[in-house]
């Protein structure tokens, strides 16, 4: 029996992040991930896909982002792979990213800094805060975020 795997490759556009979420949640549900974890799957896969799209748009807008979804039997895994070869400086550790966020948010009178971009690393900090089982592999040729959730078969 082949392992049930779905790969979604999408042009680095914001709209396709929605497709990534839709497919991830639909397959997670079918794989038997608990209902109360599905919101977590939706948000975590969305964050990882948004991050990959944003990295591609900076570095290689014509290349697709990959989302690989696998039902291993006892786990449902979601792997988001980007091939951004010009990555932003190594992501800040989650705690630092969140401290910077709180600090910028509390600045009462920003000088000119009115843009909405979050401090680097907030996306990974959100994923880390949500998902217990997550691995990030970053290198000069891109970044992979691998997340796993138990299925009913694995509980």
């Amino acid at each position, binding site marked *: 029996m082949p392992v049930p795997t779905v790969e979604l490759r999408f042009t680095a556009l*914001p709209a396709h992040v*929605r497709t990534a979420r839709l497919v991830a949640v639909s397959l997670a549900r079918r794989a038997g991930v608990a209902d109360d974890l599905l919101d977590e799957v939706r948000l975590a896969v969305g964050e990882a896909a948004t991050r990959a799209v944003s990295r591609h748009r900076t570095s290689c807008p014509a290349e697709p982002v990959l989302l690989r979804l696998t039902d291993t039997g006892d786990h449902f895994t979601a792997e988001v792979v980007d091939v951004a070869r010009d990555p932003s400086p190594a992501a800040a550790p989650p705690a630092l990213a969140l401290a910077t966020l709180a600090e910028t948010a*509390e600045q009462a009178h920003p000088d000119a800094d*009115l843009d*909405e*971009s979050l401090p680097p690393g907030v996306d990974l900090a959100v994923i880390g*805060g*949500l998902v217990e089982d997550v691995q990030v592999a970053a290198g000069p040729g891109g970044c992979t975020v691998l997340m796993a959730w138990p299925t009913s078969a694995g509980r």
Partner: protein
Amino acid sequence: MDLSLETRTEGDRTVIEVGGEVDVYTAPTLREQIIALVEAGQYHLVVDMERVEFLDSTGLGVLVGGLKRVRAHDGSLALVCTQERILKIFRITGLTKVFPIHGSVADAVAATG
């Protein structure tokens, strides 16, 4: 589901009722709405998130940006949110300490600041 936005005034507050999904695809629309209100001189905003179905860090970024904008005019930005699944991302990111979060629009309007 796509984003829906409705704004109305209650006293000196402007309430933005947000519905649907606030993500990288729709967040720009929310940002433009907030910018337009601030440019029109509305510096006390209440963002009602009770009908929001999804909010990611891009949406948080827009709310943080809005907070910075209104504070530049000594204004305020309060949130109305009782949905656990939406509150979760505010907790994870520590933003529950940055935004006043109320249980109803009435509470948010009654609160000072």
